């Protein structure tokens, strides 16, 4: 291990020795303090060219915006916030250099261009790092910002690399760099193959980017490689679309599922449903807020904690609404529209008064962030979780409704309240709990929706129409209808969107719903027979 490390250092030095003489990294770094963006970009190139591994932390800090210049003498430091002060770190040695007030420093500004340059420079510099993960990241960085300068570094690193995965990545990085260099046509031809084998959008991007500069003789190879990848992508694109549709559908499902109870089962035209979703989302916000200030370590658990909290809060609100208003309206379903509309206005304004009218920040826990690739598809984690979550809720609810005695009582009460009472069912209790359940479910939907949408007092309004649409399209009173309705509307939307655009797509979906209802006047999963007409 040690031997290998030494040889690596040696190798590194041997490669970069010529440039070492040209410049002193410390001086270069200090120059950053006064440089314009353009100059800074050149400086980064020069710093990288020193090949001195000690510059890595400084470049990293630069990219992160942690590099500051002292106003008095222009000396540059890596800083860490320490109250009103900065803890200073020497950019090259990494030694601490005391503390000083923030006001004595100016930030060395960084922009996207510089970040890109830094990424590429760091890629080259860290290719030989002893840490496997760092090497992998370095290869990745080189892959993403191809430049001829890195080619030799990559080749050197490649020669030494033993880890299979890092090696393939480096091969690819090399191929990319070859394409950007002025190597021979044959070498480039091979490189095109390697890049093509990478597949995906990125490969196309890399190949396209060299297409303008490449030698004419290589053009056919390039074109066929590109069209080959595109062919593969076509199929994946369809899959991707289905996935988008399903994930949109699951959002609709989430939004609608509480309504499937309060409206679908209980027959209450519940205009305050959206506000329940909103309150759920705000509960998440409050939970996260408490966690952020008191138990930051628990942040990744915040959603798990928010779920029961949101459920309880919204169910309680639902309970109050049912006991205070709705229960006087049974048998007068249309009046519920008026009352719940009033309730929704009040809830919106209440939230606005308490939390203010602006968006609140609800963070994504790490397991809800980012994406992974599934073949040629990109699947974002938050969507995946939401799909799973909505299905879980759906099936839990289905089981409750169909299998439990509470579910049976719930349905009996809503079909004939008086008779249910005469059968010994405690109708007031069942009513209250049913409404609370529907509200609570809307609340936990709010937890999930807070992950993809903004948390503002208007949140509920944006879902209420879609929710009613889904429940009705699926067939009122049929949970399966809500599921299938939501998913099919989602997929339909996503298949229309690419060809006609989002706006027309949405209009078309609405028109199709109108037409569909003509064919099936009682929705997708219509209840049939005498039972309904009676």
């Amino acid at each position, binding site marked *: 291990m040690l031997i290998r490390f030494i040889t690596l250092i040696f190798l590194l030095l041997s490669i970069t020795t010529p440039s070492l003489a040209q410049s002193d990294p410390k001086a270069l770094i200090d120059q950053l303090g006064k440089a314009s963006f353009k100059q800074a970009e050149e400086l980064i190139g020069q710093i990288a060219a020193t090949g001195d591994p000690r510059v890595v932390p400084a470049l990293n800090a630069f990219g992160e915006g942690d590099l500051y210049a002292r106003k008095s003498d222009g000396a540059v430091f890596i800083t860490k916030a320490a109250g009103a002060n900065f803890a200073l770190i020497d950019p090259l040695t990494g030694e601490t250099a005391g503390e000083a007030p923030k006001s004595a420093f100016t930030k060395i500004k960084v922009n996207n261009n510089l970040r890109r340059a830094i990424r590429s420079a760091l890629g080259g510099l860290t290719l030989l790092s002893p840490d496997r993960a760092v090497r992998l990241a370095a290869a990745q960085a080189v892959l993403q910002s191809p430049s001829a300068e890195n080619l030799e570094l990559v080749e050197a690193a490649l020669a030494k690399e033993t880890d299979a995965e890092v090696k393939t990545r480096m091969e690819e990085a090399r191929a990319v760099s070859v394409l950007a260099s002025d190597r021979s046509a044959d070498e480039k031809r091979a490189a095109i193959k390697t890049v093509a084998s990478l597949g995906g959008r990125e490969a196309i991007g890399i190949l396209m980017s060299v297409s303008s500069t490449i030698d004419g003789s290589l053009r056919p190879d390039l074109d066929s490689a590109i069209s080959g990848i595109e062919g593969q992508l076509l199929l994946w694109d369809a899959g991707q679309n289905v996935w988008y549709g399903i994930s949109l559908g699951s959002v609709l499902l989430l939004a609608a599922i509480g309504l499937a109870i309060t409206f679908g089962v209980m027959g209450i035209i519940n205009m305050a449903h959206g506000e329940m979703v909103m309150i759920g989302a705000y509960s998440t916000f409050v939970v996260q807020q408490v966690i952020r200030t008191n138990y930051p370590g628990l942040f990744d658990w915040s959603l798990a904690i928010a779920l029961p909290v949101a459920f309880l809060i919204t169910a309680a609100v639902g309970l109050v609404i049912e006991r205070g208003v709705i229960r006087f309206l049974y048998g007068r379903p249309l009046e519920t529209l008026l009352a719940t509309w009033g309730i929704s206005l009040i809830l919106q304004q209440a939230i606005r008064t308490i939390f203010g009218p602006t968006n609140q920040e609800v963070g994504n826990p790490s397991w809800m962030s980012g994406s992974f690739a599934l073949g040629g598809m990109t699947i974002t984690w938050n969507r995946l979780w939401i799909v799973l979550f909505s299905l879980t809720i759906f099936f839990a609810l289905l089981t409750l409704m169909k299998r439990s005695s509470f579910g049976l009582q719930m349905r009996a009460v809503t079909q004939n309240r008086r008779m249910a009472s005469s059968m010994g069912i405690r109708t007031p209790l069942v009513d209250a709990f049913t409404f609370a359940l529907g509200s609570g479910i809307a609340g936990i939907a709010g937890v999930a929706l807070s992950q993809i949408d903004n948390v503002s007092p208007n949140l509920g309004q944006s879902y209420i129409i879609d929710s009613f649409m889904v429940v009705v399209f699926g067939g009122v009173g049929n949970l399966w209808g809500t599921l299938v309705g939501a998913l099919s509307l989602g997929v339909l939307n996503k298949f229309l969107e690419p060809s006609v655009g989002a706006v027309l797509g949405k209009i078309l979906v609405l028109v199709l*719903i109108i037409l569909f209802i003509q064919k099936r006047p009682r929705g997708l999963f219509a209840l049939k027979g005498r039972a309904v007409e009676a």
Partner: protein
Amino acid sequence: MIAGFILRALEGKIVIAVGILVAFALLIPALNLLTAPGNPLHVPTYIMSLLGKYLCYALLALALDLVWGYCGILSLGHGAFFALGGYAMGMYLMRQIGSRGVYGDPILPDFMVFLNWKELPWFWYGMDVFPVAMAMVLIVPGLLAFVFGWFAFRSRVNGVYLSIITQAMTYALMLAFFRNDMGFGGNNGLTDYKEILGFSVQADGTRAVLFSLSALFLAVCLVIASAITRSKFGKVLVGVRDAESRVRFLGYRVENIKLFTFTVSAMMAGIAGALFVPQVGIINPGEFAPANSIEVVVWTAVGGRGTLIGPIIGAILVNVGKSYFTGAFPDLWLFALGGLFIGVTLFLPKGIVGTIQQRHAARRDRKAADDATNHDKVSDAALPLEQAAE
């Protein structure tokens, strides 16, 4: 025949309401135009246009009540008909701007100019001719309602399903009208009108006339609605509302009945929209917003659905409240409005007018019952409440 039809409409309450409206139509403009601003009797123009706006809303609510209160079709898309009538009027007014627009184009409205349109789209042709435009005010909403209703009622789309597709209709229209490419000015809509029939829309005289017209049209539509609901047709309507299939088994064509009512109602809504636009000075796709249509339902319910005066009172009351509260308690008015809605449902279950009527009827019944059985023990006065609690 027609005379009989109309005469039947003029039952006590309707006569009073029509009388009040006609008096309004004459008095308010007179007070606005003939008295000086300092005079205690003076009605400022601002108040007059506000009242005019409420009357348009009242007409819209009346139109909705005809289909909802009497025929049981809960339309959540009536705002669309209102907006279409408004757009027809707006198009006329836009064309009247002529070369006074900012770009001075004699034909194209401003928004077309700066979006680089070279010529007027076909559906704008003829809209500069007043009679054509006025015909469109009736035809466009009427036709949409007819086509929509033709399909929906024939397929027996009912109840919430119908409500939701009407909502989908207005929502789709809203999205469509938001698009600049539609040629209706996108989200900014049509605005900055100059004159109507050669009169400046901003002149007090014009405003007074528009106000009178709003009151008179409301009165006329009220009479028509009353005539419809008090005819045998009106009874069939209520039959459709309560037991649609039974009406079919009696041999009535339910789809025609609904279609007729829906179309008439849409046309009334269109008139309301057309009167609304010159008075508020703008029409834009916001009028198609589903929430607006729901609000109309709310006004109707507040006033009392299934009564003719109710929706008028409801629309005026809620909007007066809204005007007042948004100025007096800008931060808290939604609480007041929401509270009003909840209060009405709980304490005036049939809406304001409906509940008054019901109380009246109950008192009459009780009196009759007491007279008939005055030897019986006096009945328990707490009963109606108890019943309401069930």
